């Protein structure tokens, strides 16, 4: 028995090393399964909670076209949540349980969504920066070792890049617009820049799960590597828009062929993770409210389906 286990483990390791995808029916170590369920469900929750800050502006979008684009975008995020919950279900997790864990605070979601959207420019900034950071994090996940997760990410990434382009376009329009609009854009940029850098997670030396996840090829790059790439990509875009990066320590480092950037406020990061961000309470309360107010609808759909099935059976009999 023990030998079989050892064998399976070796086969698993070999597959991972050879970049052969692990599929739901394949044997996998318990810890691998648990890590994936945690990561995928956390990702799904982020999509769903992420609908709220942007949804906040759907009814106030300034033109018919912007309204349609924003509504379609937020709807896409719901779709991402669905694919990801489905991917987690292939590992034996149930959607109801995952959602219950989100509502109880047991499961986490990306802290970025605990910040408020105060002006229309925040919608541009989120698309440009937050979807941009999501792409940076997620493109490598298209090659992650677990098949259903990798496939979900391929679909998600395609849409995220639309979102980023739309966000950039909003920023561009504002930056080329009236002084009030440009000011709005800069203020939004100031508010979202640092929290976006925090999206890549704690510094490598403080990220306990990174090493194992890299070995299992769930993760392909470390937090700091991705953060650096993001800064290097975004600074020229900010310059193009005519926006000032809110970091007085930002300098080009010829030797590393990248930017050196200032100290991230890790106290703020951990404080938001622990639930003290400006919107943590409201976000969860909103989700819980939607869930509770929808309970009778879900029950009715179930009850009706059962009645139907019964009637069908009676007909057959």
């Amino acid at each position, binding site marked *: 028995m023990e030998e079989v286990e050892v064998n399976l483990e070796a086969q698993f390791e070999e597959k991972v090393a050879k970049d052969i995808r692990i599929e739901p029916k394949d044997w996998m170590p318990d810890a691998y399964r648990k890590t994936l369920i945690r990561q995928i469900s956390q990702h799904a929750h982020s999509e*769903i909670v992420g*609908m*709220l800050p942007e*949804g906040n502006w*759907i*009814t*106030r*979008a*300034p*033109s*018919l*076209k*912007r*309204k*349609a*684009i924003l*509504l*379609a975008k*937020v*709807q*896409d995020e*719901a*779709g991402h*949540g*669905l*694919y990801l*919950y489905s991917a987690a279900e292939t590992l034996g997790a149930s959607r109801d349980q995952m959602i219950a864990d989100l509502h109880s605070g047991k499961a986490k979601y990306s802290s970025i969504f605990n910040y408020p959207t105060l002006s*229309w420019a925040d919608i541009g900034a989120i698309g440009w920066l937050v979807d941009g950071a999501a792409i940076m994090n997620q493109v490598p996940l298209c090659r992650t070792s677990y098949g259903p997760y990798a496939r979900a990410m391929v679909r998600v990434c395609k849409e995220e890049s639309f979102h980023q382009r739309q966000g950039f376009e*909003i920023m561009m*329009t*504002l930056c080329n*617009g*009236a002084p*009030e*609009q440009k000011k709005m854009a800069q203020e939004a940029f100031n508010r979202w820049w640092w929290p976006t850098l925090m999206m890549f997670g704690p510094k490598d030396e403080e990220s306990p799960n990174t090493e194992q996840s890299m070995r299992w090829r769930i993760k392909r790059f470390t937090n700091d590597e991705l953060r650096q790439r993001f800064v290097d990509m975004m600074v020229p875009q900010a310059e193009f828009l005519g926006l000032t990066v809110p970091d007085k320590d930002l300098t080009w480092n010829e030797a590393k062929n990248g930017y050196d950037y200032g100290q991230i406020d890790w106290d703020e990061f951990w404080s938001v993770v622990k639930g003290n961000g400006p919107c943590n309470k409201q976000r969860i309360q*909103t989700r819980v*409210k*939607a869930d509770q*107010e*929808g*309970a*009778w*609808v*879900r*029950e*009715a*759909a179930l*009850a*009706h389906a059962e*009645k139907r099935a019964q009637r069908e059976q009676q007909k057959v009999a």
Partner: protein
Amino acid sequence: MMHNHENAPHLHEQHFNTPVQDYAPEVKQLVLEYTLQLADTSFILGHRLSEWCGHGPVLEQDMALSNIALDLIGETRSLYQYAAELEGKGRTEDDMAYLRDTVEYKNPLLVEQPNGDFGDTIMRQFIFDSFHFFFLKELQNSTDHRLAAIAEKSLKESSYHIKWSSEWVIRLGDGTEESRKRIEKAIDNLWPFSGELFMMTATEKKLLEHGVIPDYSQIKNSWDAHVAKVFQEATLAVPQNVWMQSGGKEGRHTEHLGFVLTELQYLQRTYPGLEW
């Protein structure tokens, strides 16, 4: 009922090239007023549905509500664009949506009613879809080429909407005791706004004569038949002798519309004349 995300309409921007017909000025004015009325109707309902985004009872239905909202906003844009062309004063679709005040809006009262609970939203949608679907079917034959083309495109979407809201009426009516109570309350709340859909304003009567719009009494027959069929399956009773509210199509609205417009017009009103 699981809605496939891949079928979700994205931003199919539709451009209709049919030129504005050679109308006598007074007829053109009527067509303009009427096009605005249709646009206002789709817009306010689409806006109301968009309020649900992120708050739906279950993810799949959250997405379905947004889909319908997107379809209606798409229809709205085609109609406002046509209205702007008919008017010929250089106004845009956004000027029509964002710079007209409550009394200028000509949507029927039904569509501005608040979302309420999911049952209210379903009943409002069902009453509307059952009208919209049969209406568009007829409007395809309009002597106005553009309205006919817009109707043809919207009909495809509307046939999905009417299916969705009808199925939900059946589920909620013939679901649990609670869902039945709630959908009955929704019928009670919203039925008084169903009659206005079929009442013809002076503008509509004249346009009927010109063959631009269909006769609503025939649409009413189709509506009655569809409602009866769905309610029967849902084990619900069709209300009788209800007093019908009206006025929206002539600019006399309920108190809700002012708040809807305040919210949706906020940026355009705060920063006049800017591009977004």
